[in-house]
Every structure is written in C-alpha cells, then in structure tokens.
C-alpha cells in the first residue's frame, strides 16, 4: 500500500489536522479584525480622554503630566484597552476558529461540525450556517457519489456480461474449432497449431478473470459471506496470497448496497495487500458487534509508508464507505508488522 498516506486515524478529528496550510497566494494580506477594532478603540479612547481634558480643564494640561492624576488617567485608559481587547476576542475568536476548522474539512472527516454553533451571537450564527452548509454539501456529495458508483457498478455489470456472454463464448467456439483443426493438421505444423490453441486458451482465461473481477457473480448469486469466501479462495489460488476468512455465521441480512460496498472494500484492500505489502498471508474478518458490521483486513507485510499520499484506491474505498455511512480506517497494526483496513458500517439505518 505504498500509495497510502500514514493515516492511522483518518476519520477521527485530529488536533493537528491543519495539513492544508494557506497557500502562498492566500497568505494573509490584511490586519486582523481584532487588531483593527482594538486599535481604533484605543485611538478613540485616547482622543476622548485628551478632548475631555482639553475641554474641561484646559489650564491643567501642562501640570497633568507630572501629577498623580496622570497615572490614574493612564491606568484607566489601559484598563479600557485591555477590557476592550478581551471582549473583542470573545467576539472574534469564534470566527478565527471557524476559519481554522474550515481549512481542515475534507472527505476523510465527514460528519465533523464546528462547536458552539448557537444563534447567540453573529459568530455563532455564522458557525450555525456553516454547519448547515456542511450538512447540505455532504448530503449532495453522498448523493452524487452514490449516483456515480451506482452507474459504475451498472456499467461493470454490463461489461462483465458482455465479456462473458459474447467474447468468452466466441473464444470457446474458436477453441473448440482449433481443437478439431489441431487433431487433423500434419505433424509438421501441429506444434504451431498447439501454440495458437494455447494462446486462445490464455485469452479465454483472461477474459473470464476480468469479467469476474468486474462483477462478482457470487455476490449476486450467493450473498456476501459466500462471495467473500470465494474472493479469498481466488486470492489464495491465483495470487499466492493466503487469505484466511473468518466470517461470522450469524450475520444479519444486509441491503444490497451495503454488501456491494463491503465486497468492494475487501477486494480493493486485498488487491493492495497482494500488490504492495510483500505479505504472503492476510486475514479477512467479517462480523457484527452490537449495531455495527465490521470488516477487517489485516496483513503481515511492510506496513504503510510514512508520508505517502492517498491513492485512488484508498479514495475509492473512503467514498464507498461514506456512501453507506460507514467509517473506514487504514493504519499499521498496533501489534506486530503489517497494516489493517477496518470498515465499520452501521446496521439498521444505513445513514
């Protein structure tokens, strides 16, 4: 899984998640609101004090500088300024934290909201509307992702059927014809005929394999548990990765959409293990605890590289997970080598 970043707790909010620093062209080019208002207020207070003294006691202006009254006036001014800044900070602070929050919102921490969003101040109102906007955007995103994924699955199904019903069958017919020809050709060309026959046979195998990868027939026919068992068998048989399935016998019946997401996440995770982990064995666990369906794929390989960027495979898993309201975490195993992909999908209400 070299293409994956070190995102051990990708879903949970991270305190240091300000990984999206403002880029150079968006660097601050203004005086912060707090400084501006505080500055103006300080000037106003000083001006007001000055004007008051000038108007009420013009004759004392020269002696003021040396008297104790000057200290009192200065202390009063300082007090007003400090109080001003403290009060302003309470008003402006939420705006700043909202900015910091907005910066780190991304697909990996869906469902996170700004705290203190209550209609008790302008800043609270802003946070409230910001949260509403997030809810709306997430719903729209989920819907559009769902549409895209459903279209993708439908297209995969169509291609798989076409491959199987058309290309596969034609190749089978070619293979049968070639078998007849091979049996009759003179000895001198038999070797060539046999190698052509072998080539056709290999392409037929490829077509079948691609069709199965595109659309697991077992999932439609036998349900998730058996489809995952077949998937594990296939990895064990074809890719020299011994995948041991632990599939709980008492799984509740799941919506087709959930089954498909679980299957695809398992498929993607195992493909990553086979490609990148250098592990020769892996475990696939599917069970349910309380109101959660848990899929876990663990390997004993190299683990995740530090500082990698999430690849399309991982993004795809995240998006599929979000579609059924599930949490996906990818990280190195706490005990021992290797890494673990964990999907937790709520049972019952899928959203």
């Amino acid at each position, binding site marked *: 899984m070299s293409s994956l970043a070190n995102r051990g707790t990708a879903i949970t909010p991270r305190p240091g998640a300000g990984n999206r620093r403002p880029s150079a062209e968006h660097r601050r080019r203004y005086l912060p609101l707090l400084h501006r208002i505080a500055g103006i207020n300080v000037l106003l207070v000083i001006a007001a004090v000055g004007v008051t003294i000038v108007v009420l006691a013009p004759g004392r202006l020269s002696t003021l500088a040396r008297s104790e009254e000057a200290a009192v006036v200065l202390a009063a001014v300082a007090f007003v300024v400090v109080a001003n800044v403290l009060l302003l900070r309470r008003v402006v602070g939420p705006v700043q934290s909202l900015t910091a929050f907005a910066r780190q919102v991304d697909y990996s921490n869906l469902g996170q909201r700004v705290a203190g969003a209550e209609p008790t101040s302008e800043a609270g109102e802003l946070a409230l509307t910001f949260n509403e906007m997030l809810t709306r955007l997430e719903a729209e995103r989920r819907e559009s992702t769902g549409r895209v994924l459903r279209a993708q699955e439908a297209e995969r199904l169509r291609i798989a059927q076409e491959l*199987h*019903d058309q290309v*596969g*069958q*034609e190749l*089978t*017919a*070619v*293979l*049968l*014809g*070639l*078998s*007849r020809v*091979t*049996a009759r050709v003179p000895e001198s060309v038999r070797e060539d005929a046999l190698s052509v*026959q072998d080539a056709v*046979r290999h392409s*037929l*195998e490829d077509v*079948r394999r691609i069709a*199965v990868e595109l659309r697991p*027939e*077992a999932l*439609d*026919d*036998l*349900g998730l*548990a*058996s489809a995952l*068992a*077949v998937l*594990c*068998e296939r990895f064990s048989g074809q890719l020299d990765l011994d995948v*041991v*399935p632990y*599939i709980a*016998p008492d799984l509740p019946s799941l919506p087709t959409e959930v089954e498909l997401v679980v299957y695809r996440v398992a498929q993607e995770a195992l493909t990553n293990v086979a490609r990148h982990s250098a592990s020769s064995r892996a475990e696939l666990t599917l069970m349910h605890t309380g109101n959660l369906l848990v899929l876990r794929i663990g390997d004993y390989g190299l683990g995740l590289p530090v500082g990698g960027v999430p690849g399309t495979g991982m993004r795809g898993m995240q998006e599929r997970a979000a579609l059924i309201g599930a949490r996906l975490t990818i990280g190195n195993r706490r005990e021992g080598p290797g890494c673990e992909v964990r999907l937790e999908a709520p049972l019952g209400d899928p959203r």
Partner: protein
Amino acid sequence: MTSTAAPPTADWAKFRDDPLARTRVLVVDDHAAVRAGLRELLADEADFEVVAAVATAEDGIEVAEHEPIDVAVIDYQLGGRNGLWLSRKLKRLPERPAVLIYSAYTDGVLAAAAVVAEADAIVSKGKVGSELCHAVRRVAAGRRELPRLPPRLADSLRRRLDHEEQAIFGMLLAGLEPPEVAMTLGVSQAVLESRLCELLRRLEGLPAAPSA
C-alpha cells in the same frame, strides 16, 4: 479436476461398424457458435454419436425423453432453466444418462450445487477439445469426477443450510445416492425430492421459485 484420461487406444473400426457401441451424446448450449463447435468436435470422434444439439434445458429434456442418451454435455448457464435443473430432470429418467456440466465458471459453488443435482463431472470451457472428449468417455464409463470443494467454501455454504439440509448435503458429498439418503433420513422419495430442490436453490443462490 484430474486429467488422468487413458488415451484412446481401442480399435475405432469397432465403433464405426457398430452404432450401438458408440456413445450417444446430447449437447445443450445456448450459444450457437459453441453449440456448433461442440457438435462438430464430438462428431469427429469415431466413438461418439451426437444425437442432438439444442439451446435450452426444456429442449434437452424433450430430446432425452424420446431418445436414449448416454452422456449429456450441458452448459450451466442456459437462457431459461439452467444446466443443473436439466441434470436433475435427466437423472429422473428411467435410463439415467451421465451428465457433464460444461461451464465457463467452475468454482467451488458450482461444484457443490452439481453434487446435489447429481451431475457427474464439470469441465471448464477453457479446456481444449481433447480434454473434453476424454471427460465424456470417462463419465460414459460411469466415473464421477467433480472438483473438490474447498473446505472453507464448504463451511460457508453449509451455513446457508438448516440441519437437515446439511445432513443431506453431507451425504451427497460423501457419494450416497438419493434413494439411500431418503432411507437414512426415513423420508419418502417425494419428500427428499422437494428437499433437494430447495437445497439446490439455496446453494445456487437462486430466488425462491417453483423450479421442479
């Protein structure tokens, strides 16, 4: 599946001269090019006689009811009823033909269902013609060779079944014939028939529908 086929060393003239000695084969495949390919391939062999090559399971049983068949070579996925349905039907005929399922996919699930449908062999469509011919000869000689069911898959399939179905499935896997199974369970043949029907449906993951 093992390919321990004995190379045909017999005297082919015997088969040419004596039609009765030839293996009578029925071909059922819904894809025209494959059907034609199978017919020609098998017809080339001196010891085979292709009785008919049809596209659907219903046509297949129609032919078998009227003409003696030794071996039926059947695609699993047919347009309507599938190859295992036809297998069960053929095995209820007075003269039970041997059944060879010729399928694109030959995974363990099909093997499990084939056991229940009493098929005798599964041959992948990826095998070359000569291997298919050898397999036809072997089942014609009464051999049964289904791929081994991977233990983990067998476990996961068993979970789909209730206790009695598991027992039936286990006995069939062990090679018992349906009459023996019925006797062991102390049920009538008819009851066993309906249980088998349900069992097959569950193994194949087909929706509940009258399939007998």
